[in-house]
């Protein structure tokens, strides 16, 4: 069981997560972190975080690795396959999972996902943000304040290391949201349709809407999807077009006095993306 009220985002390096998938696929049920690291290196991978292998813990929290054994879950096997076939998409999907995991109905668990989400939302609302060391420090302090207020707990601490754990993934998104040369975050003008439909599903659940029901696209709801995707609102329609073309269980429309709406007929699955 994950611990309650843990707001720290682990420094789960995407490369380490890829190595973990390949290693556990080849050598299931290794017992220690040292073993996983050693076998990963035998396969030719470079592990960045040899001592702690925090990517393994994050993979566990995201239900990619079993809770009580070093075995890939069904979802882990699928995402491993996704990484192999579509390496550009892999960070976006893991980003999406980290964003949507926290559930308001059980607020005490997976709080790292609340932190991740809040950092993303904060960046999105700013539109552009310098993510140098001072920027990360300011962001950490702001998120810490928001967490203390939201959860009414004074013992919550959010460090720049936590913020750094988010940027390990944001740095990898494609199309990019961080310009590495200038350390500048900015919203993107396109995102993978796979992340878009995952976000649409998340927002459906957020607004407790049943599948198959027309979902009115108010600015607020559109922005909620854009925040997951770190997408410019002006680019929403373009990505929606692509998503509708790619997934036959997503439709869009205007009419019946409704205004613009989208309809999602079922939850997206990883099988749809592989």
């Amino acid at each position, binding site marked *: 069981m994950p611990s309650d009220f843990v707001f720290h985002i682990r420094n789960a390096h995407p490369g380490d997560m890829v190595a973990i998938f390949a290693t556990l696929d080849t050598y299931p049920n290794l017992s220690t972190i040292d073993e996983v690291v050693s076998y990963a290196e035998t*396969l030719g*991978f470079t592990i960045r975080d040899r001592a702690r292998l925090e990517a393994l813990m994050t993979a566990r929290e995201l239900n990619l690795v079993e809770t009580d054994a070093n075995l890939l879950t069904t979802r882990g096997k699928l995402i491993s396959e996704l990484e192999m076939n579509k390496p550009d998409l892999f960070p976006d999907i893991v980003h999406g999972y980290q964003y949507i995991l926290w559930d308001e109905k059980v607020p005490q668990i997976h709080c790292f996902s609340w932190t991740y989400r809040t950092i993303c939302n904060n960046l999105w609302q700013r539109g552009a943000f310098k993510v140098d060391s001072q920027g990360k420090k300011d962001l950490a302090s702001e998120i810490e304040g928001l967490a203390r207020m939201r959860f009414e707990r004074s013992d919550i601490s959010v460090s720049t290391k936590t913020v750094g754990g988010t940027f390990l993934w944001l740095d990898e998104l494609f199309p990019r949201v961080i310009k590495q040369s200038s350390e500048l975050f900015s919203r993107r003008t396109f995102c993978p349709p796979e992340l878009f439909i995952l976000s649409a599903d998340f927002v459906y659940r957020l607004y407790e809407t049943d599948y198959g029901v027309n979902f009115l696209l108010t600015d607020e709801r559109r922005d909620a999807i854009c925040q997951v995707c770190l997408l410019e609102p002006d680019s929403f329609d373009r990505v929606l077009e692509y998503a509708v073309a790619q997934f036959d269980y997503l439709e869009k429309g205007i009419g019946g006095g409704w205004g613009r709406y989208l309809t999602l007929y079922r939850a997206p699955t990883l099988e749809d993306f592989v």
Partner: protein
Amino acid sequence: MIAMSEFIRLLNQIKTHRTEAWLTPSQVEAMTALQRALRIPGVVNLLGHVGVGKTFLGWSIADKMSYRYIPHIEQINDLQDMAIEGLVVDNCLPDRTAHRDVRKQLSFQNIRYAVVITRRMIDDYIPYVELKLADQDWYKVMENLGSIGAFRERASVTDLWQLLNPHLLQGV
């Protein structure tokens, strides 16, 4: 001096006569590591400086694993509609964009196992095997060449291409 036609003839002789026994000690070690990494579907980066024997090892791993070898990624188009177990792609670029393009093409062709050969390490999250040239490897290569009548001396050459074609030493 060795003429270009003679150099090509020598390359062809090497291709014709080579066996697994021609592998240098470093290549044997790298071959073992590649086989280990290729136990699961994926892409492995075989890297090394110019003239350390990557291409020769690429041919050998293709033989050993029943993969196809192509000297350049563009030639992947020639493999359309063929059932390919695995692929060795030589002369790839190490930057992430180029590598992701290779991955897309592999995925498009439904190729699940691949060795991607580069001079520098690919800037991405893939396993790698590095091939280096040790003293004992030179002797093995010269012995192999001698067995097909191509006697060479190490003298001032610094890589295996120069050993095969001394013209390269003169910048030709």
